[in-house]
């Protein structure tokens, strides 16, 4: 594999990127004084000692929200190449294919809508 200027540029770009990101952090660690001891390790909760841990069970809504975001995120991933090549296609086939792909995602929205994931009532009965 012949080593030419392009590879060097890439490596340089990599190093500068890392330095640009990590540099201030390292500089700050070296140059600034450091607070130690006391409650600095304790999680900040308005000046009070926190109680119990936050590793408790949450409602399923939050998980489903993340799931829907993930689905559509991946969906956009697939749509990128389609967008690039779409002007080369002719006829309706490409359109129909993308349409089918999107309807399945739309179905997931309808399903979760029916399950009540998107309804956040202002007040719940206890």
């Amino acid at each position, binding site marked *: 594999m012949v080593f030419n200027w392009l590879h060097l540029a890439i490596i340089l770009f990599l190093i500068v990127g890392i330095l640009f990101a990590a540099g201030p952090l390292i500089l700050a660690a070296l*140059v600034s004084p450091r607070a130690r001891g006391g409650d600095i390790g304790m999680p900040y909760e308005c000046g009070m000692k926190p109680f119990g841990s936050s590793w408790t069970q949450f409602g399923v809504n939050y998980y489903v929200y993340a799931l829907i975001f993930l689905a559509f995120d991946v969906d956009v991933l697939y749509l990128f190449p389609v967008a690039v090549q779409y002007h080369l296609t002719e006829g309706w086939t490409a359109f129909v294919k993308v349409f089918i792909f999107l309807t399945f995602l739309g179905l997931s929205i309808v399903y979760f809508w029916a399950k009540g994931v998107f309804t956040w009532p202002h007040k719940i009965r206890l």
Partner: protein
Amino acid sequence: MAAQDSAVVKPECLTAGGARIDPPIIKVEAVQNILDVCRAMSLWPMTFGLACCAIEMMAVGMARFDISRFGAEVFRPSPRQSDLMIVAGTVTKKMAPAVVRLYEQMPAPKYVMALGNCAISGGPFRFKGQYGIVEGVDNLIPVDVYVPGCPPRPEGLLEGLFEIQKKMTGRRWWPNPVQGAVK
């Protein structure tokens, strides 16, 4: 580097909670001076309004007295992102552990301004047989600047800010309203 100067405050322990501040690894005079000026020009105060002085602290943040002319208008609610703790109001005995914990949870370099008579010495609530307040916040945490008044006028708070900047960088950066020249 006021509260952090080991010469100024005994190094082994700054607060009752056993917190202390270690000096930086690279201690080059020139670098520290430059950094001090940068820190002085962008002090981020923590919204720690306890009582009446908090309203004057809010008034300083607003348009008329405008603390943002001096770089300190970003009032951070959490101690993790602030480096100036303005104790604005009466510290009661019930609130004392929270004050110490908030001070300890601030990253170094950190500075404390005791705003108002209550934070300096208990102020109007210091009388024989008082059972509820801590007379002066310097019993709990090391204080850099005391701003007297009940409540001090917003100009007083700005003067306190200049004092902290003077303590950090060694000189006053803004014209003195009375003499006009920079001392």
